[in-house]
């Protein structure tokens, strides 16, 4: 075999490569789109989870809008939190306003022992489909269906359905407060609430708007709208609407008085030190995680 063949092959291929490179260069120049380089910088700072918690389509979408926005006070990156947001603002030379850390809470405690089943659901595993079909497989038309739309939608693996209670459990460590589950829940059970530094929180774990008797009949731990908590609250943090108590997390000072007084244990306290043995405290499975 003559060496010239090898030589020609190598030369041909090299020439081809050079020509292609030149063409590529000019094409790239021609079709170049100018983009603010700060968009890339902001995107690099963001968590990159594309969770949509900011209201924009993915982190790139947020970065784009963020750089173009004149006023960034209404924008926030929930998963990234204050640190990330401050870093992103720094890229633009702006000051970020710190926001309270938030966390998702599930406002339903209707496990099978509290809430008896009235029918069985047999269809596609989707809360949304089940809701359009019927009120749910229990007597409570407001309660959690436990089919896990929130689990599916969570990009951070922070939610799972507890097998014994059939209710979603949100992990304190993993939840980034992106709000995807809040939007996904067709029963509007999940709410975003302020996260105390130690994770302490108190909330009414029920959204049943029925009158007391009806609510109690369908679920043993339903809010019956008795109003005891409203009276006992020293901070005016609790309001009563449609037979349902709601604790304003901005006013609540976590004194736990309402928890003790609630006749149906509908108010939950999480991550508090165990109190002196007096009242039976609802144990949440989260603690064992």
């Amino acid at each position, binding site marked *: 075999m003559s060496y010239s063949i090898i030589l020609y092959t190598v030369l041909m291929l090299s020439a081809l490569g050079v020509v292609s490179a030149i063409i590529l260069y000019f094409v790239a120049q021609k079709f170049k789109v100018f983009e603010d380089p700060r968009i890339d910088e902001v995107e690099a700072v963001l968590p990159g989870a594309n969770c949509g918690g900011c209201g924009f389509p993915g982190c790139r979408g947020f970065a784009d809008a963020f750089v173009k926005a004149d006023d960034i006070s209404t924008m926030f990156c929930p998963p990234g939190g204050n640190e990330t947001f401050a870093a992103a603002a720094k890229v633009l030379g702006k000051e970020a306003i710190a926001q309270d850390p938030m966390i998702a809470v599930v406002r339903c405690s209707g496990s099978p022992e509290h809430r008896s089943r009235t*029918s069985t659901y047999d269809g596609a595993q989707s809360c949304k489909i089940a809701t359009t079909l019927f*009120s749910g497989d229990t007597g409570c038309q407001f309660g959690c269906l436990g089919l896990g739309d929130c689990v599916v939608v969570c990009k951070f693996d922070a939610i799972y359905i507890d097998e014994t209670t059939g209710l979603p459990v949100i992990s304190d460590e993993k939840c980034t407060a992106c709000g995807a589950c809040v939007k996904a829940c067709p029963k509007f059970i999940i709410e975003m609430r302020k996260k105390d530094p130690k994770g302490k929180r108190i909330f009414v774990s029920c959204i049943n708007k029925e009158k007391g008797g009806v609510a109690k009949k369908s679920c043993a731990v339903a809010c019956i709208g008795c109003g005891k908590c409203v009276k006992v609250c020293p901070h005016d943090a609790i309001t009563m609407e449609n037979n349902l108590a709601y604790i304003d997390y901005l006013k609540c000072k976590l004194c736990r008085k309402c928890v003790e007084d609630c006749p149906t244990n509908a108010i939950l306290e999480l991550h508090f030190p165990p109190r002196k043995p007096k009242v039976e405290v609802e144990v949440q499975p989260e603690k064992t995680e």
Partner: protein
Amino acid sequence: MLKTFTKGGVHPPENKFSANAAIENLPLPKQVVIPISQHIGAPAAATVAKGDKVLVGQVIAKSSGFVSANIHSSVSGTVASLDAVLDSTGYKKPAITITVEGDEWLPEIDRSLELKKEFSFTTEEIIAKVSAAGVVGLGGATFPSHVKLSIPKGKKADVLIINGVECEPYLTSDHRLMLEKAHELMVGIEILKKALGVEHAIIGIENNKPDAISYLIKIASEYKGIEVQGLKVKYPQGGEKQLIKALINREVPSGGLPIDVGTVVHNVGTAVAVYDAVQKNKPLIERVVTITGKSLPKTGNFMVRIGTPISQLIEAAGGLPTDTGKVVNGGPMMGKALNTIDAPVTKGTSGVISFPEKEAKRVPEKPACIRCAKCVSVCPMGLEPFLLNRLSQRKIFDRLEAEKVLDCMECGSCSFVCPANLPLLDYIRLGKGEVNAIIRARKN
């Protein structure tokens, strides 16, 4: 060669057990629960108060818009409450509860069984009477009938189609009605023809009801311009668009209405209700309901007052057997499973079917679609259910809209044939809802 529609379709087992059971009157219940929204459109507004005495046929809730319908008391007695009551889906819906006392009818209602053939009403009078009587489509869709009779300006119908197909398995209420109220049906059709200004009417009946076909052909010869057409059995022939295609070979355009191809479709039950409303001044206060099921002690067809608890109907059929796993309101292909049997019979209840436990549960789904294309070949609308299912699950709603998800009429043929038992229709329905919401948002 009998006619049928051309695209797709399936043949579920017919199981029409109650086809030979004559219509019986169900005894009056002790209490009726009459929801104020039994039709498509705006709910009616209650016009009675708690404690009021009402007579049979009295208006208790007034239509609150053009697409809405009056609601009448189906019994005589006292209004017990106006509170929301659990309906068949388990949600609380506003309803009027009436405690039954005797059976006193409004005096203007003609209760005689005598056939009244002659009428001299104008189109407007007929529409007003139908509207006042609260007649809605009794095939199951419960669309207010007076709306269908009011043809929009610039459009014209040349033929009236009467739907006697009853393509849903199990159900026999329309079948019995055609056999037992044939003359009333014919006069009802004459009235509808007059209201629509058409000369010609065709009654479509699947040929699994040969007795109804031959009987109606005989009766129709006494009337002018009414034709009876036997059809090859295929589900979903009772779908409006499919029936039009089968009978007069016209295709309703995507997103259009039958009037766009010059026709209007009414159910046989509706035609009889129109007869009652116009000739007898009798509002829609009762309807024929089939009660059937493989393991029920007795199956039958009952004339039931609106608002009667379904549980009472079931009792008339000998009560639910212990192996019951599901009770469905409507046909097995499109009906809704009941959350509770205490829910009332409404204007749209064409049948109640009980399923034994072994047939009640869905067969567990297989992990994968093998792209066998059976769903595509059975879809009567020429859609691709496998694709719609996937797009809906992945939330790609713009493509879903482009793939004509809104043309889906939820007949269930795709889920019926899927060899992997995938819940195709569940997700398609979900996608339809989302796309509808997106379109509404776009308009605003």
